[in-house]
């Protein structure tokens, strides 16, 4: 149970020539739930995009092992096929492509085989029931004109359909109202189990009351400065980042000033 599923070792990443990740070390064992927190601009989404293979994010040093294999040589679609999933902080709109067509194509690609229409409909219906989504949702264009909360739910719908082994949830809780947060969390929990690993990126404790992490990591200026148990969340919520940074942050402030 404790074999590392995702192992990030000394990862350095630049975006448009600027170094954003400056030696990230992080391990998520199979089936565990970890939280990744950190101030705005610390590089959380950069890490998420890098793990999914966004072409703009260039790895300049370090490695990432996923189920024992190097992840970084794979294209984004291969990563998805290998069981990795990223719920985007800002899901992308694709006009003219209906949710349902997209989902079918995605599912076919990930499974590597045709999906029977009846099974697809059944799975879709039950996933939408869990997430309390309206039927008309899937006939709409992908994220086009969706509200912030609807986009996040749509991300969860995709996750529920694709059944990944490791899900990175980048601020899935932002933009959700209290009811939606509970529904989405229950959705994630219903998928979790010994199989699903979760790396949940968030600023707030509230989602972590539903989805309980075993470990919490704090990212600051491109490095994980501290990893601890769930108690770290409470401390952050009460004290903010200042004390934690003073205690664990770099003594030499060699970081380029992070954007405000």
């Amino acid at each position, binding site marked *: 149970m404790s074999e590392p599923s995702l192992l990030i070792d000394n990862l350095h990443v630049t975006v448009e020539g600027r170094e954003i990740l400056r030696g990230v070390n992080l391990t998520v064992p199979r089936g565990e739930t970890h939280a990744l927190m950190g101030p705005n601009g610390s590089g959380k989404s950069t890490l998420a995009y890098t793990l999914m293979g966004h072409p703009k994010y260039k790895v300049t040093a370090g490695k990432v092992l996923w189920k024992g294999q190097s992840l970084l040589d794979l294209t984004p679609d291969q*990563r998805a096929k290998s069981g990795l999933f990223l719920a985007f902080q800002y899901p992308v709109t694709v006009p003219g492509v209906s949710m349902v067509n997209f989902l079918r194509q995605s599912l076919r690609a990930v499974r590597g085989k045709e999906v029977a229409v009846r099974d697809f409909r059944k799975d879709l219906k039950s996933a939408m029931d869990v997430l309390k989504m309206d039927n008309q949702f899937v006939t709409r264009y992908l994220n086009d004109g969706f509200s912030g909360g609807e986009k996040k739910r749509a991300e969860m719908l995709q996750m529920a359909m694709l059944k990944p082994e490791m899900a990175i949830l980048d601020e899935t809780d932002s933009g959700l109202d209290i009811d939606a947060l509970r529904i989405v969390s229950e959705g994630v929990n219903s998928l979790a189990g010994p199989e699903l690993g979760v790396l949940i990126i968030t600023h707030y404790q509230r989602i972590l009351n539903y989805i309980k992490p075993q470990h919490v990591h704090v990212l600051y200026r491109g490095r994980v400065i501290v990893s601890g148990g769930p108690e770290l969340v409470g401390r952050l919520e009460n004290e903010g980042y200042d004390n934690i940074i003073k205690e664990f942050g770099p003594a030499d402030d060699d970081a380029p000033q992070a954007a405000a």
Partner: protein
Amino acid sequence: MAFTRETVEQVSAQRSEPSWLREARLQAWEAFERIPMPDSQRDEDWRRTDISQLDLAAFARTRNGANAPELSGPETLPKGVVFNSLERAVRDCPDLVREHLEPAAGKFMALNAALWSGGAFVYVPPDVTVELPLQATYGAESAATSSAAPALFPRTLIVVDRGGSLTFVDHFGADSAAVASTLSSAHTHIVVRDGARLQYVSLQERDERTWHFSTERAVIGRDARVDVVIAALGGGLSKSYVETVLAGPGTEANIVGLVLTDGRQHVDHQTLQEHRAPHTTSNLLLKSAVKGHSQSIFAGLVRMPKEAQQSDAFQEARALLLSEHAKADAIPKLEIIANDVRCTHAGAIGQVDEEQKFYLMSRGIPEREAERLIVTGFFEPALERIPVEAIRESTRRALAARLGTIHHG
């Protein structure tokens, strides 16, 4: 010269045509001789389409074959509907044909008017609705009739009488067995009388060695509505005039253009939205996705003379460049004299959005598939403007098929 006055006389004599038609052909022939070959240096219309490599002398008229389209539609048509070859219509209902014979404008239209045979003709009587689509499929000649390359002259005449309703498809097909480059010069003339409705489609899937010239012109009466779909997926070089004349008050014309090309294809659409009456509305949307070294040119003219008060004209041209060397050009042109009208145009040329592509790929969809989905999505708003479902679906299928071949190479 492969075509001569004798060729014209022969075509007419072989069909024992009435003298009015013979005269019309000869007049067209004279116009053809008089009009110089379009020159991209000299003719504004042809500035972006260079046909100096086209040698008309290399072509010869095919005997009939490809000029006589395959006509398809439901087995039984409502009483009074005529659906036949144009040649036959000249014999059966000469007055109708004669009334709508247009004087030729332009070099290729004149050549067509002089040399057409076969052709297609539809007449829908007043207040009659033809439910299912009618179609004329103009194939290509598979074997050259002589040492010369084949020349085709498709011609369609559509008349929808008062309050009638029709869906019609002109399909300019390809023949995979085509051995030589082909000249295809087509003309479709559409008359839609007061209160009538027409959904018209021109689906151009010619071989990539074909020179395709066409004029699709609709004259639309009071309170009538016409929906035109122009899909240009084939052809080596094509130049099409797509013209809607809103001749009566309350008229509406919607034009949707779809261009999907690759390789060295060159597609040029020159459109006209001519408002000749008040309270008329025209709406044009042209979407081009171009790959390889292909090119899509769009020049759209909106004309609103002073009779066109309280009319609306819209024009939108969007292009998606799928490769570094593909090109798209949009040139809107307005001639607005009426002072109480609305006229807007919009346009944009872009590339496949990398964020969209990454998003789709992050869901397991391989790069090419992702690109294909994005292109499909790009065309979707245009497809949604097609009111007749059967046409919407067949157009969608044609696009998907073309997209399949494009992404193969």
